[in-house]
Every structure is written in C-alpha cells, then in structure tokens.
C-alpha cells in the first residue's frame, strides 16, 4: 500500500514507523546526524570543507576496491576514507605555503583516488552495483547490523572528540598559540582528519558520497552563523542536522522523490534562511572572530598575533 499523508499528524507518525526498514532508517539517520553535526562543526570551523568532500568521494574507489578484492563495500569505504585522510594530512605541510598549495594538494589527492577507482573498476571488469546508491544514498534496506556498526563508529568518534575537544578547539582557532602552550597541534591535525574520514564514511552510507554536505556542512555552518559559543553551537548544529535528516526521511517516505533531494534542499534552505536572517539582524558573533564565518578566510581562521 502506498503511504498517504493526512492532516492527522499522529496517524502520519504511526504510518511512518509501520515498516521495520523505516525504523532502522530513523535510527541510522539519528546516529549519523549527531555524529555529522559535531564533527562537521569542527570541520567548518577549521575550513576543511574541501578535505571533507575529497574524503567523501573516496567511497567510489573504496567500493571499487572492495568489489575487486571481494571484501564488504562498507569496509572498502572506511579503508579508502582513512587512506585519503592520511594522504591529505601528508600533503598538509603545504598549509604553511599558503592556501594555493593546500587546495592544489587536496585536489591532487582527490583525482588520484578517483583515477585509482576507475582502474580498480576496470580491473574488476564488472559494473558496480548500486552506483546511484553509492553516490546519492538511500534509506531503504538498512539492516540492524548496519545500525549497530554506525552506533559503534559514532560512539568511538564522539568519545575521541570528547577527549580532545578543547585542545582541538584551541588548535583550530589559533595553532601558533596552542603550540606555544604545548598542545600537540600536528597530532590533532592528523587525528581530526582520521575522525573526519570515519564520519564521512558513516554519513555517506545514508546520504551517499556526493551529498554528505547536507549534514556535514549546512547544519554546522548555520549554527556558526547564529552563535560563536562552542557549546551552544555544537548543540544547535546537532539539532539542525537532526531536523534535516528527520524531515528528509519523512518527506522521502511520503513522496515518490529521492531522499537526497530532500536532505540537500532542507540543508540548503536552512543555511540560506539563517544567513539571510543574520544579515538582517546584523549581530555578528563576537568570540570566534568578529567578521563572522561568512567572510572568514578560506583555509582557516587567521592565527591571531600571539604574544
């Protein structure tokens, strides 16, 4: 029976959870939204959006490699994302050379990964199953094992982040100052990239590789446009991500259109509304650098002149 929407919200909600797969989709979506909201907040703060995207598209070579050697696709994702995170970190010495070097290095890592993906695919000799799902995600067919895996990954990532949250914040905002205070900035750099790889690999299983930003960038960017306070920002970011994924799942369930369209549209809409509202309200966040996030420098917040 086709699901139909009525004005009775309670019955709509019952209808939404009538099937087991929808319950799994909501569980997985919730886990991923919390993880992406938190890790994405740091990613946006550190201006590593391009790195995040590069890690995300590594799910293609990951899946191709998994098909070639015959391991589960999810394992291929995690492997490829981890390798890409290390490669980006390895070329991260460029950062001191200015933006140009870093953006070129990340781009080169990305295309090298894609080229390898095509090679694996050609060696495999077949067609990747579910290519569209890989790129654009699905909420169908998530089973309880996947939910459990996602939960474990999320718990691990959030636990790690809870341990290093404060020093990471310091290292992100002011690397020089943090280094002077004995914060292990380079270790945090590589650690965060690995965490980002883990998060992206997990998120991509719901949203698809190309649409992870609907959860990883839009909600955190909206949160940072509203408040500069880290704790409040993190909470807002998670709340926005949950809103986007829940609404997206509900709309996708009741309509014939794909989940990817709804999550990206809600993410985009949220970002636009918040940005416009902030423009009108003209109350720039003070703590994380007065000019606000929108016009902040591309690579990272400029290290303030430290003592």
């Amino acid at each position: 029976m086709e699901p139909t929407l009525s004005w009775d919200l309670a019955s709509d909600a019952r209808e939404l959870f009538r099937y087991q797969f929808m319950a799994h989709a909501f569980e997985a979506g919730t886990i991923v939204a919390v993880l992406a909201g938190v890790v994405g907040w740091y990613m946006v703060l550190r201006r590593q959006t391009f790195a995040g995207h590069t890690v995300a598209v590594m799910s293609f070579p990951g899946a191709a490699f998994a098909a070639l050697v015959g391991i589960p696709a999810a394992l291929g994702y995690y492997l490829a994302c981890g390798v890409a995170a290390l490669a980006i970190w390895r070329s991260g010495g460029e950062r001191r050379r200015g933006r140009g070097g870093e953006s070129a290095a990340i781009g080169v890592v990305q295309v090298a990964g894609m080229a390898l993906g095509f090679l694996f695919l050609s060696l495999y000799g077949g067609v990747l199953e579910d290519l569209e799902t890989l790129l654009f995600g699905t909420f169908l067919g998530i089973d309880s094992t996947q939910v459990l895996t996602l939960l474990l990954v999320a718990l691990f990532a959030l636990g790690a982040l809870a341990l290093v949250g404060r020093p990471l914040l310091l290292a992100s905002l002011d690397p020089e100052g943090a280094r002077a205070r004995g914060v292990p900035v380079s270790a945090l750099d590589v650690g965060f990239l690995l965490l980002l790889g883990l998060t992206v690999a997990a998120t991509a299983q719901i949203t698809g590789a190309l649409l992870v930003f609907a959860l990883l960038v839009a909600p955190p960017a909206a949160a940072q446009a509203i408040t500069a306070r880290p704790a409040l920002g993190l909470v807002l970011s998670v709340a926005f991500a949950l809103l986007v994924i829940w609404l997206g799942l509900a709309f996708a369930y009741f309509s014939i259109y794909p989940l990817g369209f709804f999550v990206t549209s809600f993410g985009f809409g949220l970002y636009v509304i918040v940005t416009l509202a902030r423009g009108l309200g003209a109350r720039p966040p003070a703590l994380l650098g007065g000019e606000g996030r929108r016009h902040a420098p591309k690579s990272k917040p400029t290290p303030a002149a430290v003592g």
Partner: protein
Amino acid sequence: MLAHEFVRNALLAGTFVALACGVVGWFTVLRGQVFAGDALSHVAFVGAIAAAVVGIDERVGLFALTLCSAAVMAGLGRRARADDVTIGVVFSWVLGLGVLLIALLSTSSAGGEGLIVANTLFGSIFALASGQAQVAAAIGAGVLLAAVAIARPLLFASLDAEVAALHGVPVGWLGLALLGLIGAVTAEGTQAIGALLVLGLIAAPAGAALRLTPRPYLGMALSGAIAVAARWGGVALSYAIPSLPPGTAIVGLAVGAYALASLVSVLPVSSRQKGASDVALPSTIAP
C-alpha cells in the same frame, strides 16, 4: 594508432582542452580556488541530466548550469572568491537537484537514465564523435585565448587585490571571469575526460608548475605543457594497455608530474624552493 579516427578525435579535442585546463588551472591553484573548480565539475553533470529531462542538447544544459553556478558562487563570495562553506552548501544542493532529476527522468521515460549518468560522470574520450571533437577543440581554444587576454590584470588582482583595486583594476569582475572560464573548461572537460576526473587536469599540472617556478608566464606555459603531455601520454598508454582506462592514465600521469615536482621542490639546496605564495608580480605588470 593515429589511423583510428577516435584516437585522432581524442587528441584533437584533448590538446586544446588540456591547454585551457593547464592555463586556467594555474590561476585556480594560485588563488586557492581548486574547490570551486571541483564543485563546478560536479555541477556540470547535473546540467547534462537537466538537459535530458527538458529534452534539449546535453551540452547546452551542461554549459548553462555550470556557468550559472559559477556566477552564483562568485556572487556569494567576497570579491568573487567564494567561501568554501558556501561552495559546499551550494553544490551539494545542486547535486541534490540532480538526484531529483534522475528520479524524474526514470519515471518519465523508460530507463536510459543510467546511460546518461554514466556518460557524464564517467565520460570517455574515445566516445567523442568528430563533430564533438571539433567543437571541444574550438571551445578549448576560446577559453585559452580569453585566459591569456585577461592574464595580466588577473595576475595583478590575484596577487594583491587591494593594490590592484586602488589602481582601478576591476578585481570583482576578473574573479567572476575566472570562475566563468573555470566553468567553461570543466563543462568541456567533463565530456572529454569525465566529470570526476577533469579536476586532475586543472589541479595537478598547475600545482606542479607552481612548485617548479615562481615566474607567472613560464608557470602558465609549463602548466599547459604538462597537461597536454599527460593527455597525449595517457591516450597512448591506455591505447597500449587496454585494461587501463584513458582517464586513469591521463590523471595518473598528471598526478605523477605533481609528485615529481613536489620532490624536486623540497630538495633543500634547490633555489626553486618557492611555492605558490612566492609568485611575484613581474615588474612589467605593476602600472
């Protein structure tokens, strides 16, 4: 090898597109806008699908959407340099629209959508017809000429936007023009090499050139030369080794050039230890 028409087409289209990618890429890397180029190359494929839904020529949709997105990104950024968060949000939304269009396409007509997706995302240079190859070559040459024409003021604006603006250089317009050129070159490159790999010819040769020389015009020429060499070498390699996809071979060579250049430029004794941040204005440019 050259006896085959499809190889000749691949080389004809490839040479000009690669040259344009190399030169436009040099500015892209210098300004740290590789992410914008990447985003535009993904957007290109949505344009192709949109065209298929509306029922017009794939290429029209590809160029229209890519150029529009370039304009939007320029408009949202300060001095036409879009913020990476803005790029991320905008382009993931455009891709989301692409998903919707794929769904529309698959409900409206019987299948066939997979073919289009495969063609645009994973496009093959050996599939170019000779008419397409000539158009691709013409567009590549046009972009190249345009890039050379604005090279001087663009270089000035890229290296020192404030001073350039004081001297009356239209910094914002030049940024928009560059994004437009990136859009055009990615739209064309999408057909010639595939949306997921075109970035290879934009980022890698330019990154290599910027590591080898801080001199702007030499760098641009070097970048174009590396791109063309990767292109020819890649086509030859994949012709010789059938299981090696042409895109992989081309990008592999370009990435190899970048890795080699990185190795050379980190040698401590080298006087070439200058990177992108060290590019200096030639005295002939400053007014």
